[in-house]
């Protein structure tokens, strides 16, 4: 159970890192992040129905699709209404609901599942889900790649925009383009996480809500600077969520996450590192 939480949490970290990226560079709270997670899972399901039963194959496809949607959303909506504090949360939530309902119309509201393959038997009779391990390893690899990217030269514009967008603009960077590309990339990360995690649970239209909240909690607590902190915290929350689900009932882990969001927000009203006050 603990191991399962660890594996799941590792994949959630991929999504949370995307959330942090959006919050840092685009400086918005993206409530549609969960929808991209769901999108990834449905892409994996659709592929599994066509005989490609591997989330590893589904993840890149889901990422490309989500990147396209994300760039569209980032370019034509988020960038356009960034200065309206009302439009952003409500609009991104609208997009999430739009996607949830569309998924419900296409695939139906019932939970779907993907054949996960036989589990591996580890040392000491430990049963490990095969795809859990694969998902964990690939997410860890992707996160490592992200960390490398951020610390290398191509990642510099992202840091600079997060720091001060005016200076970035005056240095000749196309701030708008970098913003929507980042948005798309982060959405792709969420979709990849969704595809990788799809065999571990039921695929439903609203499955993205819990990971969305988890990413929010992670971003609020861990901040946006350290990929490693996000990774560790996601694992912690994955284990915590699994413990809740196992000790009480599955929906309690969702409620616990919601309660965590409430508590965190009321405990640290200004604690989230959004430089929103700078934007006038």
């Amino acid at each position, binding site marked *: 159970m603990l191991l399962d939480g660890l594996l799941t949490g590792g994949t959630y970290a991929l999504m949370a890192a995307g959330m942090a990226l959006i919050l840092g560079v685009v400086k*918005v*709270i993206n*409530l549609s992040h969960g929808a991209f997670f769901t999108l990834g899972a449905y892409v994996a399901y659709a592929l599994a129905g066509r005989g490609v039963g591997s989330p590893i194959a589904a993840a890149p496809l889901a990422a490309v699709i989500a990147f396209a949607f994300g760039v569209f959303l980032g370019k*034509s*909506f988020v960038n*356009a*209404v960034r200065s*309206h*504090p*009302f*439009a*952003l*949360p*409500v*609009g991104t*939530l*609208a*997009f999430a*609901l*739009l996607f949830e*309902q*569309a998924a*419900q*119309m296409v695939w139906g*509201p019932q939970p779907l599942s993907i054949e996960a393959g036989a589990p591996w038997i580890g040392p000491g009779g430990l049963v490990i889900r095969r795809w859990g391990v694969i998902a964990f390893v690939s997410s860890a690899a992707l996160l490592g790649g992200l960390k490398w990217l951020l610390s290398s030269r191509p990642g510099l514009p992202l840091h600079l925009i997060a720091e001060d967008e005016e200076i970035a603009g005056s240095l000749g960077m196309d701030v708008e383009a970098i913003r929507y590309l980042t948005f798309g990339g982060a959405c792709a990360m969420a979709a990849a996480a969704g595809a990788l995690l799809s065999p571990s649970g039921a695929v439903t239209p609203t499955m993205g*809500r819990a990971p969305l*909240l988890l990413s*929010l909690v992670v971003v609020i607590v861990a901040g946006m600077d350290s990929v490693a902190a996000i990774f560790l915290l996601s694992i912690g929350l994955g284990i915590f969520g699994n413990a809740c689900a196992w000790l009480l*009932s599955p*929906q309690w882990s*969702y*409620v616990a996450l*919601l*309660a965590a*969001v*409430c508590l965190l*927000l*009321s405990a640290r*009203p200004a604690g*989230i590192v959004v430089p*929103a006050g700078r934007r006038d």
Partner: protein
Amino acid sequence: MRNAASFRAPKVSLRGGTPPARSPWRGGGSLAAGIGLLLLFPLSSPDAFFLDVFTTGFLLAAFAASWDVVGGVSGQITLGHALPFGAAAYACALLTTLAGWPLPLAVAAAVLLAAAVGAGIGAISAPLDGPFVALLTLALGEIAHEAAVGHTFFSGPGGYAWGGEGGIPVALPWRDASPFSSYYAALAFLCLASFGMLRFSRSGTGLILRAVAGSPITAQASGVPIARFRRLAFAAGSAFAGAAGAGFVLHVGRATATDLSLELSFQAATFAAVGGRGTIVGPVVAALVLHVLFQGFSLPPSARVLLYALTLLVTLRFFPGGVVGTARDLASRLGGKDGARPPRRRVRDKPGEGTP
């Protein structure tokens, strides 16, 4: 409302420096015409289905206006406004059926409960701003929704399991309300509630709330206890939402988990965004037009939510001030008016405006 309007801090008289409170009857001509049309509508012997659509529409419109008290007038964007609505609905159902209270008493208790719930949400969210209020209220609403979905927490007489997806029935003193009486009762409720909310939003308290929404820091610097006023706005808006919820449950006869759903909160925000935030009447008109339009074609629920989301996205993208607000700005710009005259209040009665 009274005691908060008379808070001690400001040295400037609140009433003195501001223009006299506008009469809610300003620009009432077209409004009266609209109400007249709605009063006449049942006499054209329409389908019972359409009467039902309109009845629900009236209650939703009151709900949308109550969202506007919180999200528009006081500027605290709530995405959990279904919580007081559903709390009142559940309270009504439980009190009449389980505790056997008489209906009027149960309704009064439900409205009070909704106000208390609102005051609680307001107290928690008062220190927050902007998207974080949205986040917090969303989380609170979802917790309530999960609690309502997940538990068959009461079992009624006769061994039925209540709660969960099936909801809880209300014990109504009447058998089958005729669609006409429901229609007129809901319409009367909508008129009364909107009038009350309009009065509230244009009173001294409403003015202070708008000031807080405009710039919390300025308001605080001039001595307004913003936390208290935000709490008050939440309590007032939630009381009206609770009244709408009680009305809804009387009409439908059953409190279900959908009364607490995120989709419902989101609908209210959509109506307000389309109709123009902070105008109270705008959301009412938008709610009526959109609801009748989408429900009248008897679309499946998921298609309806999808259309609402689409409408909202288009509105936010192209009319950030709401369809009505943008139209009004445009009209006043075309008319060559400068800002000296207060914005016209009469543009919002075009029925076609809410269409995506």
